[in-house]
C-alpha cells in the first residue's frame, strides 16, 4: 500500500475511516512516514497562509473598466461594495461634507468678535454730552474759557480720532471750568469787598486754573506721539478674507507597494478663510490627496489582502490660530486644524509652524503636518496616517 497516497487523501480530507485507521497505525510505527506527514503539513500550512488572493492594482482595474467603456471605480469602492454599514456609507458619501460645512458656520459664529463700536463724529458726540449736562444748546465752536486770572498752564491738544474716553475727559474739563469760573467770580467779588474794608496787601490771591483749548478737527491728521497714550490702542489689522494654497508632501506610515498618482494637483490644498481678528481665522479647505490603504477582508470564504493607494478629493471646515509676531520680524507661529470628508472616509489634519509676512498682504507658511484618513471595510475601521511638512502661501484681501 502506498501510504504517501493515503497521506495525500488525508490532507484533502477524503480518507475513509478504514483507511484512516490503517494510516494511523502505520504512522505510529514508521518514523519516516511521520516525517513525511509533517513535511506535507508544513507545506500545506505555508500555502494556506499564502493563499491571500492577489488583488489587482487600482491602475489595472481602471484600465479594465475604461477599456470596456465603464466609469473607472475608486479603489476603495471596489472593496466597499461588499461591506460597510449604511452609517459608514452615509458618513463617507454625504454626511461629513455637510457636517463640515455646518461646523464651519458654527465655528465662524462662535469666533465672531463684536464689531468695533463706531464712533460718532466728535462734534455730534460733544453736542450730546453738553446737552445732557447743561441743558443748553451745544456750541459748535471749540470750547474756551477766557481766563480772568493769571493762567498757570495751557495745554493744547489736537484731537483727530473721536473716542468716548476723550469725550468724557472734555466733559469733565468743562465741568471743572464751570466750577472754576464760579469760584473765580466769587473770589473777585470777595476781593472787591475786602479791598474796600482793608488796606491793600502785598499778597494777592492768584487762582490757579487750567484752561484747555480743544480743537476738533475732522480731517485725519497723525497724532503727536506723546498723545497716543491717551487713546486706546488701535491696531492696523482689518478683518477680511484670506486665500491659502499649500502643499503637503507627507509620508505615509502605512507601507504600500502601490505607487500613488502623481498628477500636478495631488497633495495640495486650497483654503478660503475669513480672518476675524489677528488671532482667529476659519473657513473651508479642500484638496486632493493620496492615502495608502492596506486591509484584509473575506470574500467567498477566502482571505483577501487589499493594497491600494488611491487619490481622493476632500473638503471640510478649517480653523487657524495665529500667534503674535516675534519682535516685529514678520514671523509668527500658527496652528491649523481641518476636519473634512471624502468619498473614502473622513479626513482629519492638523499642522503647526510659522508664517512669514514680509510686506503687504502676502504670507508664507511652513510647518509640520499630520493627517489621517479613516475608512471602513466589512464593518472594520482602518486608519491611513501621514506625517511631514507643509508649505504654502496665503493672500489677505
Amino acid at each position, binding site marked *: 500500500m502506498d501510504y*504517501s*497516497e493515503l497521506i*495525500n487523501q488525508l*490532507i*484533502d480530507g477524503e480518507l475513509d475511516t478504514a483507511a484512516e485507521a490503517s494510516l494511523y497505525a502505520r504512522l505510529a510505527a514508521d518514523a519516516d512516514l511521520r*516525517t*513525511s506527514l*509533517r*513535511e*506535507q503539513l*508544513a*507545506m*500545506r500550512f*505555508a*500555502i494556506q*497562509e*499564502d*493563499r*491571500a*488572493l*492577489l*488583488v*489587482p*492594482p487600482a491602475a*489595472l*482595474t481602471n*484600465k*479594465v*473598466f475604461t*477599456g*470596456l467603456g*465603464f*466609469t473607472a*471605480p475608486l479603489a476603495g469602492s*471596489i*472593496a466597499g*461594495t*461588499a461591506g460597510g454599514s449604511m452609517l459608514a456609507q452615509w458618513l463617507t458619501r454625504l454626511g461629513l461634507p455637510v457636517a463640515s460645512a455646518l461646523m464651519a458656520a458654527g465655528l465662524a459664529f462662535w469666533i465672531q468678535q463684536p464689531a468695533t463700536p463706531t464712533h460718532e463724529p466728535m462734534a455730534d458726540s460733544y453736542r450730546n454730552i453738553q446737552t445732557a449736562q447743561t441743558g443748553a444748546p451745544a456750541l459748535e465752536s471749540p470750547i474756551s474759557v477766557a481766563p480772568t486770572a493769571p493762567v498757570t498752564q495751557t495745554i493744547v491738544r489736537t484731537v483727530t480720532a473721536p473716542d468716548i474716553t476723550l469725550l468724557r475727559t472734555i466733559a469733565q474739563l468743562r465741568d471743572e471750568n464751570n466750577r472754576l469760573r464760579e469760584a473765580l467770580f466769587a473770589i473777585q467779588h470777595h476781593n472787591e469787598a475786602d479791598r474796600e474794608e482793608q488796606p491793600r496787601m502785598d499778597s494777592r490771591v492768584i487762582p490757579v486754573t487750567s484752561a484747555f483749548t480743544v480743537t476738533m478737527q475732522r480731517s485725519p491728521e497723525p497724532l503727536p506721539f506723546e498723545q497716543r497714550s491717551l487713546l486706546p490702542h488701535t491696531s492696523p489689522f482689518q478683518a477680511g478674507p484670506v486665500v491659502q494654497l499649500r502643499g503637503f508632501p507627507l509620508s505615509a506610515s*502605512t*507601507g*504600500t*507597494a*502601490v505607487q500613488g498618482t502623481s498628477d500636478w494637483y495631488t497633495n495640495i490644498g486650497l483654503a478660503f478663510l475669513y480672518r476675524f481678528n489677528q488671532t482667529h481665522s476659519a473657513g473651508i479647505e479642500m484638496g486632493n490627496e493620496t492615502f*495608502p490603504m*492596506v486591509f484584509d477582508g473575506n*470574500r*467567498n*470564504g*477566502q482571505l*483577501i*489582502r487589499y*493594497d491600494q493607494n488611491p487619490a481622493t478629493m476632500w473638503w471640510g471646515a478649517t480653523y487657524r490660530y495665529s500667534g503674535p509676531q516675534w519682535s516685529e520680524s514678520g514671523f509668527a507661529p500658527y496652528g491649523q486644524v481641518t476636519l473634512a470628508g471624502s468619498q473614502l472616509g473622513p479626513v482629519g489634519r492638523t499642522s503647526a509652524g510659522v508664517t512669514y509676512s514680509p510686506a503687504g498682504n502676502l504670507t508664507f507658511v511652513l510647518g509640520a503636518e499630520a493627517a489621517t484618513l479613516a475608512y471602513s471595510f466589512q464593518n472594520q475601521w482602518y486608519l491611513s496616517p501621514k506625517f511631514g511638512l507643509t508649505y504654502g502661501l496665503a493672500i489677505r484681501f
Partner: protein
Amino acid sequence: MRQFSEYTDVELFRLLASGQSEDAFGELYARYSGTVYSYCMRLMGDKEKAHDIFQDTFMHFLQSARRHQQLDNVKGYLLTITRNLCFNEKKRASSQNLEFDEELYNPGFSREADRNEMMQLIAMALELLPDDMREAFVLREYQGLTYQEITELLKIKLETAKVRVFRARQRIKEILQPYLDEFQHD
C-alpha cells in the same frame, strides 16, 4: 430595492446584456477579480503578460455575456477564459521556460516580511513543475477549487485531477527536501 451584492452570479450575468450592465459588471468584478488576477499571476509568472491577460479575460467575458445570456458557473467560466488566454500566450511565445519574476511572489503585499521562507520556497518550486501539474496544484491549493470544479474547468477526469495534484505535491516535496530537512532540525 435589492443591492447588487445580493444578486446571484447567474442573475448578474443576465444583467450584463441589459441596461444595468455597468453595475452588474462592477459587482462580478468585485467578486472574482482577485481570483482571476491570482490565477493569471501564478500561471504566467510574468507580471506584464498576466496584466494583459487579466484585462483580456474581462473583455472576452463581457462580450460573451452580451451574446449568451445564460451561464451556470460564472467563476468557472472566468477561469476558463483566463486559462485559455494563458496557454494561447504561452504557445505564441513558444517557450516553456518561465522567467522567475520576483514580483510574482511579492505582488501587492505591503508587508514583505510576512511571507516566510517556506512560502517563497514553495512558490519557487512551482516554477519547476510541468504546466499541467502546476495548473492543477494552483487551482486546488491556491484557488481552493474542489476536484470536481477542477475537472470541469480543465476538462479532465476526476482521477486525473487528483493524480496531478498528488504528483505536484510529491514533486514540490522532493525539490524542497533539503530545506525541509533543515526545518526539521531547527
